[in-house]
């Protein structure tokens, strides 16, 4: 296999990649499992989460990214950006 997909098979890269994937998935899962907790403080806001902590929040993803940049968060790729609905929503997707 040529191109960018080929580098995926380097074991060193894979370990690094896997750690980031796990952290990112863990952050998203935590947001899903703790939506009620988040709702009590951040209803109708977008939040940035890592390691069970809210790093930033705002009215839009752009605002949240701006806050993360201000706080000089090194790696935003693993951060979960989630909307916290005021009411429990029925998701179609």
């Amino acid at each position, binding site marked *: 296999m040529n191109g960018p*997909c080929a580098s995926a098979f380097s074991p060193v890269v894979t370990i690094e990649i896997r750690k*980031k994937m796990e952290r990112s998935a863990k952050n998203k899962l935590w947001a899903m499992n703790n939506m009620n907790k988040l709702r009590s403080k951040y209803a109708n806001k977008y939040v940035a989460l890592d390691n069970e902590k809210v790093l930033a929040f705002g009215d839009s993803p752009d605002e949240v990214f701006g806050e993360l940049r201000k706080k000089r968060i090194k790696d935003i790729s693993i951060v979960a950006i989630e909307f916290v609905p005021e009411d429990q929503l029925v998701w179609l997707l």
Partner: protein
Amino acid sequence: MNSCLKINWSGFYSGQFYGDGILRKFPAVISKDHEHHGAFFFSAHMILDEGRHSGPVNMLLDTGASQTIIGEDDLTKLGVDITSLPRSPHPIAGWGGMTESFIIEKPCVILIDEEKKSEAFALDEILCGRNPRHTRTKSGQKHVRTVSIPSVIGRDFLRVHNLIVHIDIRNEDVYLFST
């Protein structure tokens, strides 16, 4: 229904149905919360722009989606400005309305199988959906609400890579199978 024969579906996808090729199982991450009723996603690593941008992306499986999409938020997290991408002539349409889309050529999606081995899935292109902004008036004031577009694995991904979808929500058993 409880008296019905229980089928081991993992066994169903065995050699006798799909030849002697080794089936690799890519498990989904499943939520246990009540609100999402067993929502699940696939933890992926996406490589864009010939490796210049890469990172983890959590992708929903959407069998109603004709094409694989990366959301604007995920794109931003990978360090790509959506306005730097060529605009697609085809907007993305869904229940929430329509939004403009941008083309990402030759992306690579990496998934990890249940034996913790990675597999890279190349695509000719995916689209990036721009987050739509809805304006609404509340108490005489205009409010702009941004709606985040999620990243989704669409039917193109399943078709191009011959993937089989197994979903057993009750038993928290959700996989993509590749042959």
